[in-house]
């Protein structure tokens, strides 16, 4: 890389640290970017991109956008993980400089939680929730698109820190005062706070959207106790988002103001109270854990019923336990810092509340097992992830209860025991659940089943790789290894276990490669599913053709039972049931550039504030307000789909009588 470019970068972006390997990757990105630009121009795809994707408000397309982002971020976070494991495999190694290692573990955690887990969950919500409740879209389609573009803007802002150099390096929790200017003068933490605030606004809007959607938009007859468990989980997750993200936004904003505008919330001097950040962060952070896992409880509940060919066992109890988890999850946040001197009374309260939350979770496990009991289990890939989830999550939950025993936590805190525990539940619960949902609903989203044989290979690599990676880490915790160590001395007996763990990480990496191969292969060679119901499903989305037409339901269904579609099939209803008179004009939301432009404006604000380019930040902010005001004056945000068009589409899908 020519020296003058490096110089230019350093002038524009002061205090950034560029590593040689990153420069190489940058070069690759530039070449790739130019290549993509030429390809798009040559094939005249810019208009298509703008019309079909950038301005879309269709929940099914937004789902695809979320999914693409999530898989790209899974790749980025996964590479970070491999780098961490490479650095830690042997004692005293300097595979990369300490500062780069600090950046890598920070971005690994942040990306996996905020930019992989959350969007993947929202991909599933967007893809399925309206279809499952018999709605034509979410309650606020335009806000749904805004949520996506704010998330995308946050994700890009966060990842740009890697391209320019100077990623955040204070861990995904970003405790002050280490994030303060006295210890962290570079731009890294600015990226972190701004990206998370912007993406967080988007996430909050998603929470509002799906809460209102599930409360107000259900098809006639779908009472609360007839909602599929996945809808319950979407509703509860949305409520959790609503209550969890505001404290986070406040905590992040205060840290940001300390850095940019000289306030004294969490500083070393001026009476700053870093502990307040920790409280606010975990007031978000613990519900966030359940935001990351409750949707997958929903996925597993659908998957296990479908592939056991049997009703979900103990539906009312499943609902009750999900609600119990929702309420209890707000009363456990102090268990992330029993060792911050809160006193025995407080610690005992939060220790016991944490144990309490294990009860409804345990009950769910029993109910899933008894859903299989007396059924006929089909070992599809989606079901394999469900089957891997149960034992993995039980062990993760068990170690979680061990951590809740307060004095034991004094020894476990911040050790690799904790690392092993939360990967155990996040990978065992969230990632396995996401992949289960991906394999389960892929045919609905894209119209063909993911290849099952390749899926099995990816599954076994992930499952075995997971255990090889993380079981040694429990033992490392007992050997006194603490988290976020750059390197460690020989002679403590840590390195054998670390080598095993690194091998496991490589196996999981191979699993990711297999997954991507599976997806690409299916997109190219996958066999089109013409039934729309390849798994013999139970809920309403399987009553629709795959992929689903823009308006979802030509006629809004009427629900008579819990597993609505199963019930219809039992009563002998077929797919070609629609009579032409049932089809009327449909009012649909109109595509709009507003959400995309809002994302761009927010990006300008975020990027300019990171480097304190005040005038540009001002312009960006003015842009944000201008777009919001313009949007308020826009009354033409919907259009009518003519009944004739709908009839034609349905007829072409073979679903119209006569």
């Amino acid at each position, binding site marked *: 890389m020519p020296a003058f470019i490096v110089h230019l970068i350093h002038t524009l972006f002061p205090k950034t640290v560029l590593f040689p390997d990153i420069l190489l990757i940058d070069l690759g990105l530039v070449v790739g970017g130019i290549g993509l630009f030429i390809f798009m121009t040559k094939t005249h795809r810019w208009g298509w991109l703008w019309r079909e994707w950038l301005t879309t408000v269709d929940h099914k397309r937004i789902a695809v956008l979320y999914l693409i982002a999530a898989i790209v971020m899974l790749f980025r976070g996964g590479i970070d993980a491999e780098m961490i494991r490479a650095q830690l495999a042997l004692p005293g190694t300097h595979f990369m400089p300490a500062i780069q290692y600090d950046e890598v573990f920070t971005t690994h955690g942040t990306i996996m939680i905020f930019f992989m887990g959350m969007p993947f969950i929202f991909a599933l919500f967007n893809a399925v929730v309206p279809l499952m409740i018999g709605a034509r879209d979410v309650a606020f389609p335009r806000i749904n698109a805004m949520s996506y573009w704010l998330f995308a803007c946050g994700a890009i802002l966060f990842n740009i820190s890697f391209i320019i150099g100077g990623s955040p390096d204070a861990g995904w929790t970003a*405790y002050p005062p280490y994030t303060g200017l006295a210890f962290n003068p570079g731009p890294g933490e600015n990226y972190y706070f701004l990206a998370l605030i912007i993406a967080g606004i988007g996430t909050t809007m998603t929470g509002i959207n799906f809460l209102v959607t599930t409360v107000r938009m259900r098809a006639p007859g779908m009472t609360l106790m007839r909602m599929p468990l996945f809808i319950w989980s979407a509703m509860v997750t949305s409520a959790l988002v609503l209550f969890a993200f505001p404290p986070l936004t406040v905590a992040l904003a205060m840290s940001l103001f300390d850095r940019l505008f000289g306030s004294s919330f969490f500083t070393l001097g001026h009476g700053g109270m870093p502990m307040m950040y920790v409280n606010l962060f975990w007031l978000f952070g613990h519900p966030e854990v359940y935001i990351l896992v409750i949707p997958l409880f929903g996925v597993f509940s659908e998957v296990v019923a479908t592939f056991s*060919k049997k009703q979900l066992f103990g539906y009312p*109890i499943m609902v009750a336990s999900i609600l119990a988890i929702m309420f209890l999850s707000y009363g456990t946040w102090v268990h992330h810092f029993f060792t*911050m001197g809160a006193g025995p009374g407080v610690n005992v309260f939060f220790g016991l509340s944490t144990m309490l939350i294990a*009860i409804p979770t345990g009950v769910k496990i029993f109910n899933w097992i*008894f859903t299989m009991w007396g059924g006929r289990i089909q070992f599809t890939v989606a079901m394999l992830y469900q089957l891997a989830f149960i034992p993995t999550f039980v062990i993760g939950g068990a170690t979680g209860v061990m951590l809740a025993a307060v004095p034991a936590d004094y020894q476990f805190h911040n050790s690799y025991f904790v690392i092993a525990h939360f990967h155990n539940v996040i990978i065992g619960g969230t990632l396995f659940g996401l992949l289960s949902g991906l394999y389960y609903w892929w045919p609905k989203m894209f119209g063909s089943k993911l290849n099952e044989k390749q899926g099995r290979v990816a599954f076994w690599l992930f499952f075995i790789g997971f255990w090889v990676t993380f079981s040694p880490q429990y033992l490392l915790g007992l050997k*006194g290894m*603490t988290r976020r160590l750059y390197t460690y001395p020989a002679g403590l007996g840590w390195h*054998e*276990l670390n080598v095993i763990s690194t091998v496991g990480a490589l196996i999981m990496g191979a699993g990711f490669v297999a997954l991507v191969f599976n997806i690409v292969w299916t997109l190219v060679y996958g066999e089109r599913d013409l039934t729309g119901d390849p798994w013999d499903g139970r809920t309403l989305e399987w009553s629709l053709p795959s992929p689903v037409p823009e308006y979802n339901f030509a006629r809004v269904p009427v629900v008579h039972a819990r597993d609505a579609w199963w019930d219809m099939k039992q009563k002998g209803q077929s797919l070609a049931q629609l009579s032409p008179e049932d089809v009327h004009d449909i009012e649909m939301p109109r595509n709009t550039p507003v959400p995309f432009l809002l994302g761009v404006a927010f990006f300008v604000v975020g990027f300019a504030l990171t480097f304190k380019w005040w005038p540009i930040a001002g312009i960006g902010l003015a842009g944000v307000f201008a777009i919001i005001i313009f949007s308020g004056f826009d009354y033409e945000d919907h259009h009518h789909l003519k009944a004739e068009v709908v009839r034609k589409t349905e007829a072409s899908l073979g679903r119209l009588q006569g």
Partner: protein
Amino acid sequence: MSFKGLRKPYRSLALAAVAAGVVSTGCGQQYVVLHPVGPVGEQELHLMILAAIAMAVVIVAVFTLYFYAVARFRDKPGNAAPYRPEWHGHKLLETLWWIIPVVLLTVIAIPTVQVTYALDRLPKGKNPVVIDVTSLTWKWLFEYPGQHIATVNYLEIPTGKPVLFELTANSPMNTLWIPQLGGMEYTMPNRVLPLWLQADKPGMYWGDSGQYSGTGFEKMFFKVKAVSPKAFAVWASKTHATATPLTLASYHQLLKHDTMGQALYGSYPKDTFPSIASGFTLNGQGMYMTMHGPHGSIKYLPMSATQK
């Protein structure tokens, strides 16, 4: 709940459970958390083992049901197992698995409460050795107010006596952790937190920071030497007499963002640690504020002094 009567068998069971790991490395002593040398670490270990056993019961129960269900109810031609697609609940069973976790968690919860309160009190009738700990970027400063000496990245403590650590930070947060003596506690700027530990056997142990605080953080390992009270007194007075004093100027050197090795000081200046001893519980009196940032003056004032 007679927790004490049960501890021995639990201990042997847990040791058996990690035996595989121990054998493969050939060095069980390296599982420092499982080999405590003082009462704090021991009580914490007992609780861990109790929790592990209660959880093992859950795991065995769930795994048995799970593997049986998966093996028996496969979708295979000729599977004779009953197929009941409409079976959606069973009151007795569902009540049962609300009760099982409640019972098991009660078994863990009661000793958790007991031990948490017990560890918050210094043992009666024993005068503790007080050590004022300040985490700096990236080193530990230990001040012995009773002995008028200070050390960096090195601790020497008497055996059989509780050691009361008063923890603060003139740096980002860290945690003080000496795994063989017991669990960790945070060091935080503007606050003083207490932690007591005790070594019952003389020996060389190690400590570390558990909270990431920057690029030199992995160099915050330190040695902990436990010796007889007599030898400790000899070491302290010898250090007081012979080692160079820690001056304000050299304290400012310590504030530099860098790592360093061990050091001993024969005395230390007055204002490097918050001036009012915090009680063992920190209601109100434990909160301090600094006048300036880490590089300016290092005076601390209790909050009440500024609010006249």
